[in-house]
């Protein structure tokens, strides 16, 4: 029943989208300055039906309607309600429906909220956005229908991959989707700006809030994914330069570049074409990332069941999108004077943009190179963290410096700022203290450490000055402070992390350099969807008298039958103690991985600060970044 209902809703939404394309196409020729009411009504109806289709699938999951293949394959009656709900987007078809819903949501919101007076700009944006929507509806209905039904109806479902049964991961896809699918709206708006030739300021003010929204969600989405990897995958790391992580990071770089250059555009200083290129590039990178993840040419935790026809569809869409964007761009691109004053604010923003594009290129090459090499020569290689660390780390130094000094410069004026001041001396002093504590020898790491401290101190001074003079640019200060702290804590974490691997039996004790680990006993536990073995460990420090109890778990899920290793993490204010155990079966020997990770919470909080800056800017639109 729900399956048929879902198909009806999707079909109606598709028809409405087609009607919207037809109306907006006709409306372009109409000389009236007002957008007719029927377009608003249809857009609202489109949103309602598309949301209804999502609700139908959601209901299928919540009430375990196994007549829908998608529910049968990805759910189970004994699953907790929370994971039944998150199962809706924990598979290719369901997530595609969510993807379309976000396209539609942003389309309607843009139409209703955007205050731009230029009718053609809004109509063309609606037109381009609905072309995207129609293409994805067709993809959904012809290739990846979440509402396909089966008969006879199975009694029980096959279950959700247990590795996905995690609170962080349940919210990770929707967050990221709002981020990178949300970028579709400024993709459409950018193309529309070219065609309708609107001026720089109104383009900037029209797309800025959407850039901030998508950037905020993208940042938080990446953060949640990273936290999940840290807790669930049991390797004790939080960023692996895995191709899939890279796919989420690449649009983020472009969004960050866009976020800064739109400020220049807002002041009518220039960068009109550049903002348009970046807007197109953001969504292109998002679709390219989706292609890499869904087509199965990469193997990772994110690859859903393989189906080459999907990859072909997304690739065809990507090709159409890229070439039509190039065509529209070259046909309509305005000419503008490119002369920016050296050492002005816009000059630094431009440099920031080149850094972001450089980071994008490095990550893109690292991600695509193995695929290209394999296809062209048959050689299989993998590009790992050393490549990224080696190439990206040195560039952090000038980036951090620019983030420190750039914002102090004024718009459209060249002046050389004195930078020998109290901030510099204080930073050098704090750096020397840190240096004598950590005793790191590498020049590169020390420079990164110094410049991150310099950025932190400078932004704190900016905060103080801003509060004193009551003209404060809070969002910039918070984001830049967050970034400085992020680099600083990653550095400290990198240096002070400890790890040891060993085997233990119940009752035995292991001594590492600084800690004593006692394996006290073993407990068996069973829940509705899994059984587990829980180890009880007592960790104590040799020097100080502190004790921690850790309980790592080995879970055996029944639907589908899978074993997962749940790390036990004691998250302290300054440091995390991380313990995983593996190798069950009926033996009494366990392999233990013990890690001490300082400042993990500070790393998460720094990223939250970075994203918070974007949110503040969104709600405080009077101020400039």
């Amino acid at each position, binding site marked *: 029943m729900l399956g048929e209902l879902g198909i009806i809703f999707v079909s109606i939404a598709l028809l409405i989208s087609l009607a919207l394309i037809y109306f907006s196409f006709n409306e372009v020729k109409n000389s009236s300055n007002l957008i007719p009411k029927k377009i608003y009504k249809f857009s609202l109806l489109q949103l309602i039906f598309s949301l209804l289709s999502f609700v139908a699938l959601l209901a299928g999951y919540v009430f375990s309607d196994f007549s829908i293949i998608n529910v049968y394959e990805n759910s189970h009656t004994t699953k907790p309600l929370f994971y039944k709900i998150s199962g809706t987007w924990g598979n290719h078809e369901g997530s595609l429906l969510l993807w379309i819903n976000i396209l539609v949501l942003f389309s309607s919101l843009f139409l209703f909220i955007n205050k731009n007076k230029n009718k053609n700009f809004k109509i063309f944006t609606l037109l381009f956005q609905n072309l995207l929507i129609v293409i994805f509806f067709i993809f959904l209905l012809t290739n990846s229908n979440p509402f396909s039904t089966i008969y006879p109806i199975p009694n029980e479902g096959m279950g959700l991959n247990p590795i996905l049964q995690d609170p962080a991961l349940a919210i990770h896809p929707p967050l990221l989707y709002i981020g990178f699918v949300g970028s579709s709206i400024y993709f459409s708006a950018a193309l529309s700006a070219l065609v309708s030739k609107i001026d720089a300021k109104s383009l900037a003010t029209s797309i800025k809030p959407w850039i901030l929204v998508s950037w905020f969600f993208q940042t938080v989405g990446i953060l949640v994914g990273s936290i999940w990897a840290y807790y669930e995958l049991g390797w004790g790391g939080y960023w692996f330069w895995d191709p899939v992580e890279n796919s989420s990071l690449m649009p983020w770089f472009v969004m960050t570049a866009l976020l800064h250059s739109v400020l220049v555009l807002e002041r009518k200083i220039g960068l009109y074409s550049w903002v348009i290129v970046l807007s197109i590039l953001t969504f292109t990178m998002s679709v390219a990332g989706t292609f890499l993840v869904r*087509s199965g040419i990469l193997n990772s935790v994110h690859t859903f069941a393989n189906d080459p026809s999907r990859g072909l569809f997304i690739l065809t869409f990507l090709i159409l999108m890229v070439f039509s964007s*190039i065509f529209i761009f070259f046909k309509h691109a305005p000419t503008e004077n490119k002369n920016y004053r050296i050492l002005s604010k816009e000059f630094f923003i431009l440099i920031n943009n080149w850094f972001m594009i450089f980071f994008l290129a490095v990550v893109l090459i690292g991600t695509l190179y193995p695929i290209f090499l*394999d296809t062209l020569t048959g050689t299989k290689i993998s590009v790992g963290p050393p490549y990224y660390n080696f190439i990206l780390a040195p560039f952090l130094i000038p980036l951090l410096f620019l983030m420190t000094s750039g914002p102090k410069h004024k718009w459209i004026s060249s002046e050389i700022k004195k930078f020998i001041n109290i901030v510099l001396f204080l930073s050098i002093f704090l750096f020397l203290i840190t240096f004598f504590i950590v005793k790191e020898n590498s020049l590169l790491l020390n420079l990164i450490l110094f410049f991150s401290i310099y950025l932190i101190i400078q932004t704190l001074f900016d905060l103080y000055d801003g509060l004193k003079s009551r003209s404060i640019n809070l969002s910039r200060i918070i984001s830049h402070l967050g970034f400085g702290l992020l680099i600083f804590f990653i550095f400290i974490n990198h240096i002070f992390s400890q790890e040891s691997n060993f085997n233990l039996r119940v009752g035995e004790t292991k001594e590492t350099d600084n800690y004593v680990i006692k394996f006290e006993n073993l407990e068996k536990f069973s829940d509705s969807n899994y059984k587990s073995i829980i180890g009880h460990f007592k960790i104590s420090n040799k020097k100080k008298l502190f004790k921690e109890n850790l309980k790592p778990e080995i879970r055996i899920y029944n639907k589908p039958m899978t*074993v997962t290793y749940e790390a036990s993490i004691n998250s302290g204010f300054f440091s995390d103690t991380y313990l995983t155990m593996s190798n069950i079966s*009926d*033996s009494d020997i366990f392999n233990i991985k013990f890690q001490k990770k300082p400042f993990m919470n500070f790393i998460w909080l720094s990223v939250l600060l970075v994203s918070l800056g974007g949110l503040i800017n969104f709600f405080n639109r009077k101020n400039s970044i």
Partner: protein
Amino acid sequence: MKKIHLLLICIFFSFIFIVLYLSLQNSKIYDTENLVGKKITESELNLFGKDGTFNTKEISNYQFTLLNFWASWCGPCRKEHKNLLRLSKNENLKIIGVNFKDNEYNARQFLQEMGNPFYILTEDSKGKKSVNFGVYGIPETILVNSELIILKKYIGPLSSKDVNEISKLIKK
């Protein structure tokens, strides 16, 4: 000038898309179906728990051989074990186990508890030799005839349907 830019950009993107398209056709790299009908790679495996090795050439001594990759830590292996035990009753089929990235003690306990279907048991504690057989996850099972030709590959646990299929294949 503008046209040259346009041309260069189009060529650049076309190149990327062509390669991506090709890689899409290529994406069967993780699928080892294409090994069926080919000769099994020669490999020398250490015997489990004792000195000595087993060379895959020795498979030619038996009418049919089933190579099974398993480990005590692997849940699905537990599930398929009863099917292996059923198959081990066939006269003209020898099951050769490859204990994959496992701890010897655990593996021994596993067999003691569940029963031992293996005619010969070998081990691949580092998981490197199994790669020669196209194994990238366990359980995986390969049916080989006396000419060392791979007749069938099963990725994931053997079901009772698979057992019937194997029984049919080896009766011919």
